[in-house]
């Protein structure tokens, strides 16, 4: 009898677990039918998975285009997954054999994708006339179709410009409507705009070449350097122009005081915040991209109407002779399950009205050469004409489709940080060039071996 009673607790526990399990099976959580991005047909529609990297208002703009597509037909449903660092995740998913159907990428990793044959050529879109070479400015076409084969489609392009704070210009006795045209003028104006406190601390800087440090590896472009030779596939890191650029770069901590500058910069807030050094008046001039206008409108409305945008000064003083361009792009990774459906989606995305909708909502310029009047009318970026004009600027350079780009950029950044710390510019960049040359020799040797390993 006592034995029977002793069994009761375990029986009750077993029954309770069974009831709980049954409840979970019947009423428990299950994936939303549309969120099952496994490619099976759901509610009669094929699910195409799309991994993209935008957040906030930029993501909402992309969702707007996706919603347009999902409403436009009843056979395909695009499921958007917003994520950080989609490049690494996509590469791993391709290696693992389970990539998305469409992925977002930009110029820097393009070379790695190309070298590893990781993207499906979009030749059908060219053959069917959806896109053609003449649809885009030359530099955008080169980005999307390295070596002539279209691998990606452009989504939102960006070029850089000088943003200057007119209030601080007027306060320093400078003409608020006359930005610098040459690097020399930039230096002179920056000196007048820099303000020190009684304790010797920097209160306001005219300009800082490391704020933000997103283009540190590209500074030589504005000094006339051709960073990459497309014919010889050679990275030019220690040319006289590059040395001049980084001598200029290294002059800033010398002029302002290395430790004073560190202390001053440690007070800067995040880029996308009201404490952005340009937005809260700590730095009077910055180099930024098209999208920055939207961030100013979002985080510091008081600055609206009190800042200007102009081509960034060059060493020669001739505007539009140099710029750095990049572009968010869409591609279909190798191993995608629904290539045909993904092509249809991309063909929809690249339609003029959709691409203009996306860029207008993101305050950016269109990657297409053909622009509607509506685009200019609807775009709330007051400098959209300037940015759109810059799209066809002859001096735009971009990251080449070379798998070494990420490594080379890291090496230049490291060299830049050394010269910022006081090391010799010529010796540091000579060393960086030697390193890159050696990697390139190794890479070419491997290329040749890979060719030999290819089945005939």
């Amino acid at each position: 009898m006592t034995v029977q009673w002793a069994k009761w607790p375990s029986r009750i526990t077993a029954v309770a677990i069974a009831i709980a399990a049954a409840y979970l099976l019947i009423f428990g959580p299950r994936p939303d039918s549309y969120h099952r991005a496994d490619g099976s047909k759901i509610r009669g529609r094929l699910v195409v998975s799309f991994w993209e990297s935008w957040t906030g208002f930029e993501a909402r703009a992309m969702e707007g285009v996706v919603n347009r597509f999902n409403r436009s037909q009843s056979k395909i449903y695009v499921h958007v997954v917003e994520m950080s660092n989609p490049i690494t995740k996509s590469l791993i998913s391709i290696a693992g054999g389970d990539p998305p159907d469409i992925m977002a990428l930009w110029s820097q990793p393009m070379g790695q994708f190309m070298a590893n044959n990781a993207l499906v050529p979009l030749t059908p879109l060219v053959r069917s006339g959806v896109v053609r070479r003449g649809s885009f400015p030359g530099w955008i076409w080169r980005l999307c179709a390295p070596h002539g084969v279209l691998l990606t489609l452009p989504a939102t392009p960006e070029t850089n410009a000088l943003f200057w704070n007119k209030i601080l210009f007027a306060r320093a006795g400078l003409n608020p409507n006359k930005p610098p045209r040459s690097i020399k003028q930039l230096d002179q104006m920056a000196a007048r705009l820099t303000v020190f406190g009684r304790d010797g601390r920097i209160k306001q800087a005219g300009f800082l070449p490391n704020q933000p440090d997103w283009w540190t590896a590209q500074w030589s472009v504005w000094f006339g350097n051709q960073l990459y030779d497309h014919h010889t596939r050679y990275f030019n890191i220690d040319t006289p122009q590059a040395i001049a650029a980084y001598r200029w770069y290294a002059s800033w901590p010398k002029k302002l005081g290395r430790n004073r500058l560190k202390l001053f910069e440690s007070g800067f807030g995040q880029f996308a915040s009201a404490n952005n050094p340009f937005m809260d008046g700590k730095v009077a001039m910055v180099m930024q991209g098209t999208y920055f206008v939207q961030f100013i409108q979002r985080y510091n409305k008081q600055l609206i109407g009190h800042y200007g945008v102009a081509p960034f000064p060059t060493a020669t003083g001739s505007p539009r002779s140099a710029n750095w361009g990049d572009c968010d792009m869409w591609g279909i990774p190798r191993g995608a399950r629904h290539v045909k459906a993904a092509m249809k989606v991309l063909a929809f995305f690249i339609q003029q009205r959709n691409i203009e909708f996306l860029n207008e909502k993101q305050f950016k310029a269109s990657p297409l050469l053909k622009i509607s009047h509506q685009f200019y009318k609807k775009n709330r970026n007051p400098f959209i004409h300037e940015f759109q004009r810059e799209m066809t600027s002859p001096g735009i350079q971009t990251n080449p489709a070379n798998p070494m780009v990420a490594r080379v950029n890291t090496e230049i950044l490291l060299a830049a940080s050394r010269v910022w710390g006081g090391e010799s510019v010529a010796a540091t960049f000579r060393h960086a060039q030697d390193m890159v040359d050696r990697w390139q020799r190794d890479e070419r040797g491997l290329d040749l071996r890979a060719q030999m390993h290819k089945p005939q």
Partner: protein
Amino acid sequence: MSANSRITWRQQLIGLAFASPFIVGVALLLVIPLSLSFYYSFCHYTMLTPPIWVGTKNYTQLLSDHAFLRSLFNTCLFSVISVPLALAWSFLLALLLNAPNRLRNVYRTIVFLPSLLPLVATAVIWRWMLSPMHGPVNFFLQFPCHWVGGILSQIALAFHASPATVHTLRHLKPPLWLADGKWAMTTIILLSLWGVGQTVIIFLAGLDDVPLELYESAALDGAMGWRRLRYVTLPMLTPVIFFNLVIGIIASWQIFDLPYVMTHGGPGRATLFYSMYLFEAGFQQLRMGAACAMAWVQLIIILLLTTIAFWSARKWVHYR
């Protein structure tokens, strides 16, 4: 005899069947990945294209890779300083927390709590705390720095130091912590002491395990205070110290999250650690072959250090 051996054979089979989930798991998740990574370490491999055999090139190239050598040096430095420092700090805390006190459990909880926090959250909080401009640490350090700097500059004047030295001392400022290449490593080492809670708990368990009669005997012999600690507590704790030392060495060679979130390896490469560079080479530069070679070098270094620790343990670890 034959019946016995049959039973044994059958029992062995049953035993193997029960152990099979573990055996299959180890084979799938350890043996095969390890073997593959060893093979890839001799290949040029990007994960997306078939590996190309390059012999020992990945290993020889490491010797001329400045970033690799810097990460190796940084990790060695971190390990050499942080492991003994963490051991000493944890031991000291454990001694304090072992002292009879009404609030002892509260103090123990306070010391243990930081090790429960995710490392990323800890890193983000400390990054703000150590901000030279807005961080509370430098805010509170300003006054002592000014005060100490004043005294030191007077002493320097008395010793006829150069005007530059006197000026530097007079304007002594709190460090720039993570923004300064000279201070960044020190900051990471100091912050690694923040999460010593688990080591402290192990030391506390060890302290509880020291037989009271040994203390009584020592007291009868007139040993108190430092002598009691030196000749009773420390020898009895050597197995615990050894355990913490081995775990500390392994953990120090795997440090990743804290510097990755706080400095991303910078300024320059001042805080680039081994695991960070391995991750960068493998998953950002797609040099998986080189990353595999680095992982094997790391494994060999850890094995070597652990072997040395075990070999030396024979001389200083006392088991009861």
